[in-house]
């Protein structure tokens, strides 16, 4: 059946496709690539810059990933360094803190998905539903703003808020008779500082994609729902959510692909020895052990490990999504 489809489409004839529910649909014939490029050359020209970027900065360096299996010596170069098999991977897996690093990394990655994703969806819907133009724009701008601040600046802001002796939050706690909390050096409080500060910093930026998806919803659906007597919550529940579900799934899948990236910049700025047990993640370990100790083979091995795990998770999650929600999967 598939071979037949391909043959039909290649010949420029419309093909048919049977969906899981038994519906048969016509699929437009696939035009020749050269013709397609010539026809839309302006658009393809725009694509050239990111295409070159990805080739130079993402694909060419893949060749150098072989140093993950080598005792890399800069003088000998990537090709000249000696092969050592999986030694770099073994060093990483057998490092004293491996399981703790993995636990912390997953804790922050999953935690950020669980907190930041819903928060940005709620913010997007709130902004979309807001009818007061000035208020909507003000909230939108204020929510975007922290994204543009580096974690160095954010550290300063958090320190001013959370300092045990002079922080605003602790001043409030003391005002109500409580004991000040050293949020940045308490192992109990630190993970929450990381997760909530990330949600605060990134929610506005993350909401953009959802706002864009909301803008594409046919407004007649809302008008019809209002005529039928649906209230705001019902409109959100039965129109808004289902409409942006594919975008939510896409964002979720992309985040799963980088699940072993828990935010190096943030953690490097915020953590300190007293919270290493809950603050040290794979990337900070790689920085200390790989980059500062000139173990580039080890650092590359960890990067490769993260990439492979991320890719496997994306493929697996995508399969699940395509099984349970057709049309929402990435590929």
């Amino acid at each position, binding site marked *: 059946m598939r071979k037949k489809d391909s043959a039909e489409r290649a010949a420029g004839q419309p093909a048919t496709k049977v969906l899981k529910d038994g519906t048969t649909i016509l699929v437009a014939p696939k035009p020749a690539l050269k013709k397609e490029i010539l026809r839309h050359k302006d658009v393809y020209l725009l694509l050239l810059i990111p295409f070159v970027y990805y080739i130079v900065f993402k694909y060419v360096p893949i060749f150098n990933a072989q140093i993950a299996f080598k005792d890399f010596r*800069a*003088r000998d170069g990537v090709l000249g360094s000696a092969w050592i098999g999986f030694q770099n991977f073994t060093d990483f897996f057998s490092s*004293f803190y491996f399981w703790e690093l993995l636990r912390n990394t997953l804790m922050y990655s999953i935690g950020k998905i669980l907190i930041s994703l819903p928060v940005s969806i709620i913010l997007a819907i709130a902004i979309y539903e807001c009818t007061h133009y000035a208020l909507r724009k003000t909230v939108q701008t204020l929510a975007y703003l922290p994204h543009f601040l580096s974690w160095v600046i954010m550290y300063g802001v958090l320190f001013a808020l959370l300092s045990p002796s002079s922080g605003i939050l602790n001043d409030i706690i003391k005002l109500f008779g409580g004991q000040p909390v050293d949020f940045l050096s308490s192992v109990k409080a630190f993970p929450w500082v990381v997760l909530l500060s990330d949600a605060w910093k990134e929610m506005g930026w993350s909401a953009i994609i959802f706002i864009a998806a909301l803008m594409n919803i046919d407004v007649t659906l809302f008008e019809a729902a209002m005529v039928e007597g649906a209230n705001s919550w019902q409109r959100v529940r039965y129109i808004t959510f289902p409409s942006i579900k594919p975008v939510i799934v896409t964002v979720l899948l992309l985040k799963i692909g980088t699940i072993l990236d828990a935010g190096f910049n943030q953690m490097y700025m915020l953590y300190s020895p007293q919270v290493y047990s809950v603050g040290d993640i794979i990337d900070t370990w790689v920085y200390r052990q790989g*980059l500062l100790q000139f173990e580039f083979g080890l650092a590359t091995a960890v990067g490769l490990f993260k990439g492979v795990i991320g890719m496997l998770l994306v493929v697996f999650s995508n399969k699940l999504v395509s099984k349970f929600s057709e049309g929402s999967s990435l590929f």
Partner: protein
Amino acid sequence: MKKLLSLMLIALIAMSAVFANGAAEKSSAVNEDGTVTIELWYGAAITEAGPIPDDWVGYDILREEHGIDLKLSVLPSNESDQDVRIQAAAAGNSLPDLFMVSRPVLTRLVDQGLVAPVDDYYALMPNRTAQQYDADSIAMSTIDGHSYGFASPGSVAKNEGLLIRKDWLDNLGLEVPTNLDELMEVMRAFTYDDPDGNGKNDTYGYGAYIESDATLKGYPGARLFPILGAFGVDGLWCLEEENLGLNVYKPEFYDAMVYIRQMCEEGVMDPNWLTYKKDDFRAAWKQGRFGIMKEQNAAYASESNYAPFDANFPDGEWIIIDPPEGPDGLASVGAYDQNYRIYAMSQDAADEGKAEKICELLEWMSSDEGYYLCGWGVEGVNYVLDENGIPVTGDLGDNSFSGPDGQVYTQLRNMVFYNSDVELASRYPTYTTAVSGKTMSALTALREMQSKYWTAAIGSGQMPTPNADVQRYYEQTLAEFLSGQRALTPENWQAFIDGFNRIGGAAWNEEGIAYAQANGLVR
């Protein structure tokens, strides 16, 4: 289409192979105009100021009189960032011809064969060698019997002191503390007896931040050295023959930890000390948050640094005091090493025949012309000489060597300065504070700080460093003891030592002892 994809794949592999070989073959050392290009990555003298402008007259002098086309690039101010930048360049086999590098990184680069030995080149720089390089500095850059860099004098040794707010002592009728018990009493009074008389409970006894490394300033770091020194355990390593090894193994280290933990428990230590960065700490003492600290002479007493404190507290006064004595009568401001800035020559530069020109550049820097030009700029434009021959700012305004427009021309001064009296007198002039009218001098403060008792730990900077897991275990566990996450009991301490040994601490200690013995660092 298949043809296109095949071509793309071949191009990709070819590009990858080219990139994989690192930097392209370097061309001949001599340019078409007869000059030799020397790429120099330097540490900026004034990190908050910009790089040396393109109109710096030094470029023309070097090009026309020495045939050197100097290309300058400033390194990040943060030491870790410097290390990362150098090592990233090394990984791509694209190190510059001459670059500043820390000793631990130098050791790794030598191991990779990326740095040229320079033993034979000192003779090419007689003036500079006499001025800047002696046996100690050469030892600092010596690895496996060869010198792999030119180690110039760094910041002045013993340039920090223990300071106390004299006005607070006077307000509370207290004397300067001389031992740890008295120190604790004063810290309590500073914390709970409203020493500034503002009616608020907003002051602390001692202020600090974590300033540690893996060679000299072991955790909990240099800002607590006067406390650790009272127990004889200041510094990461003890280089005395009878106690050679990591200080953490000495029983007195536990006693020192108990004392610091008591400071935290009693609330006399500014609770921000574990999270303060250097700038936060410095802002805090200028805001009157604590009354005792260990601070660097210029950070305390130079005009620009003292001005905010002077404005906030015109009646405030810091004095430099002797470090407190511990239970066995020991006292020390801290452990000190000779500080050096190492400039290494890449093996590629040596292979290209640039070594002699690099030496010519360095020798010129230490000539009268280069020394004053790099150190202070152009006479009459950036500095004038006073009656004692000291370069001063005069009335040159913004163009003076300390003014916003002139200071950028002195970014290379750390490559020529060697802490001479002329340099120090010029750098730390006596001045009158703007608000309180006090007479201040960072040089006077320096001399007073240097007169106190310090623990010699010369050569600590050369000692081997641990791997990341050992260092994390060491720092994390000590931090947990001090913050109260882990009870500081003899049993738990022994468990920490046992764990430290298992993870690699014992091997690190043995490696350090062997290194110190083999390299004559034991006192």
